[in-house]
């Protein structure tokens, strides 16, 4: 027998109102926790992939789209640009590295990206099995691609046109898997990398077959000679912050678009932020309602238990002791809400992660407790204590004799 046992017995004695208060508290904490987790993980994923890329060069269009497609590989590319012009523009003392990217095909929804070794080095990815692609039609695949698409060293496959997996297959030419990357927790995990020239080879080959036999030789010849080499975009790293000037120059004086990831991603997070803030506000409101529910149910039960309190006081209990016992009831609900909320938010994240993985090949699976969540615990405890303290203060005003004589 102790105060905690009495508090717990009191909560159990009113299962429905305890359940309601606990449920509201749990719901509020679940939402806040889930938001914190999602925010943190998205932020981490986004900043890990954007690290070291100061500018993306691509076709005119939406700068955000260019960045989403070229850095995160989650939106459609904006279109192609001539390699020659891209190289000319990036031949600038302000620019340290420029990594060409060419995409448009996929295999089982995993993107096939034509690039060079610099791209691999940029993400500090290492080859786990086999080797890095060297020749045309050789590919090195990300760890998740190997796992989900079931590709092994030496396997061959043909890519399909488009990024959604429903495109027409380039059946005649087959890629060969020559290497598999170690998991790097970056965008490389979900990509199939091949030399730039592979992508050109595939599409030339493909076009050839679309022409009639007679004209074939001549057309093909022209194509080889005149068609300018095209890429989708170029990832650029500046030598120093003054490189920003290059971006302005490109946007003003060329047909290409130079997008700055730092700015665009901030813009994206600002947009998302409105939604996140609204949800967070909602969660705080739910937690406050949980507090009110604790208040109302304790207030009501205290009216019923007035005699009990007077009885315990007459049996030698201190007023502060009983006050503490009532606080404990609010505190217990808060703590239960916090623990269950924490568990539920992890379950929610897991579900969300499964969807995100299916749709975007992004996985969010860091389940550790965030520092902000201790703050949430503090707020929950505060709400529980205040909600319990307001009605419990009546203990200090209680007239024992009068209350006992009333019945």
């Amino acid at each position, binding site marked *: *027998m102790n105060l905690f*046992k*009495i508090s717990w017995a009191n909560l159990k004695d009113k299962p429905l109102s305890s359940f309601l208060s606990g449920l509201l508290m749990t719901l509020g904490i679940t939402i806040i926790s889930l938001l914190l987790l999602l925010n943190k993980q998205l932020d981490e994923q986004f900043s890990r992939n954007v690290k070291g890329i100061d500018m993306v060069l691509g076709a005119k269009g939406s700068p955000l789209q260019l960045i989403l497609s070229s850095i995160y590989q989650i939106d459609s590319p904006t279109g192609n640009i001539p390699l020659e012009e891209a190289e000319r523009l990036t031949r600038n003392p302000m620019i340290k590295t420029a990594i060409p990217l060419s995409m448009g095909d996929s295999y089982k929804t995993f993107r096939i990206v034509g690039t060079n070794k610099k791209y691999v080095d940029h993400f500090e990815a290492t080859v786990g099995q086999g080797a890095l692609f060297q020749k045309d039609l050789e590919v090195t695949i990300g760890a998740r691609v190997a796992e989900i698409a079931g590709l092994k060293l030496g396997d061959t496959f043909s890519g399909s046109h488009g990024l959604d997996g429903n495109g027409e297959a380039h059946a005649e030419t087959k890629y060969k898997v020559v290497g598999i990357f170690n998991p790097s927790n970056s965008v490389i995990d979900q990509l199939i990398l091949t030399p730039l020239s592979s992508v050109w080879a595939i599409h030339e080959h493909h076009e050839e077959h679309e022409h009639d036999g007679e004209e074939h030789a001549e057309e093909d010849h022209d194509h080889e000679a005149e068609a300018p080499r095209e890429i989708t975009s170029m990832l650029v790293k500046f030598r120093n912050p003054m490189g920003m000037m290059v971006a302005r120059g490109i946007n003003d004086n060329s047909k290409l678009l130079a997008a700055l990831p730092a700015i665009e991603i901030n813009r994206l997070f600002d947009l998302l932020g409105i939604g996140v803030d609204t949800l967070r506000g909602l969660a705080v409101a739910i937690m406050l309602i949980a507090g009110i529910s604790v208040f109302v149910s304790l207030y009501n039960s205290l009216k019923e238990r007035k005699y*009990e309190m007077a009885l*315990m006081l007459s*049996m*030698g209990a201190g007023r502060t002791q009983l006050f503490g016992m009532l606080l404990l009831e609010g505190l217990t609900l808060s703590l239960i809400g916090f623990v269950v909320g924490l568990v539920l938010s992890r379950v929610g994240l897991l579900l969300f992660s499964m969807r995100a993985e299916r749709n975007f090949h992004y996985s969010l699976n860091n389940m550790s407790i965030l520092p902000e969540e201790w703050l949430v615990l503090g707020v929950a405890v505060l709400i529980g204590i205040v909600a319990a303290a307001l009605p419990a203060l009546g203990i200090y005003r209680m007239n024992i*004799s009068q209350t006992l*004589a009333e019945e």
Partner: protein
Amino acid sequence: MLQSHQLTFAYSPTKRFAFPDIRCNDSEAVLILGKSGTGKTTLLHLLALLLRPEKGSVTIDQTDLTQLPPAKTATFRAAHVGIIYQKPHFVSALSVMDNLLLANYLAKNPQDKTRARELATHLGFADHLNKKTHQMSQGEQQRVSIARAVMNKPGVILADEPTSSLDDVNCARVVALLREQSEQIGASLIVVTHDQRLKDEFSKQVIL
């Protein structure tokens, strides 16, 4: 032993009470009889120092309760006084056993389950120890109150209309048990009532 001396109390200038002196030795029983409105409950609360008297003193085992600082009265009461109320009241969320142990706990005594079981057996509710109190009959509940009042072996037992809501059979049983229990621990028993059925049970009586 309990002794009161010239106790007076006023709820308002027009509603005031002056009580006759009461003296009750160890193992003795005193019946205080009075109609309603004569201040029976007020007197009992004064004796237990749930109310502070306007004038006069209450002495229990050589300690003058009116001289104790308010913070100490609760502790003193818990250790030396067992109270039985008109309607048996308990902490409803707790089992019968826990309600008995609560008396030990609140008086900061070791929680004596053996004594609780012995009392339950003796007072005839041993089968109900794990039940909630509201699952028992009035008579049973009143017997649990008696057990709770004697858990700490107090020097004084005060009973406020302990039989008024009981039928004749239960009334006789409760009074018998009350006397038996207080004699067993050598306590002074003071019963305040308007219940005429108790008149013949007590030799020492005070009429208000």
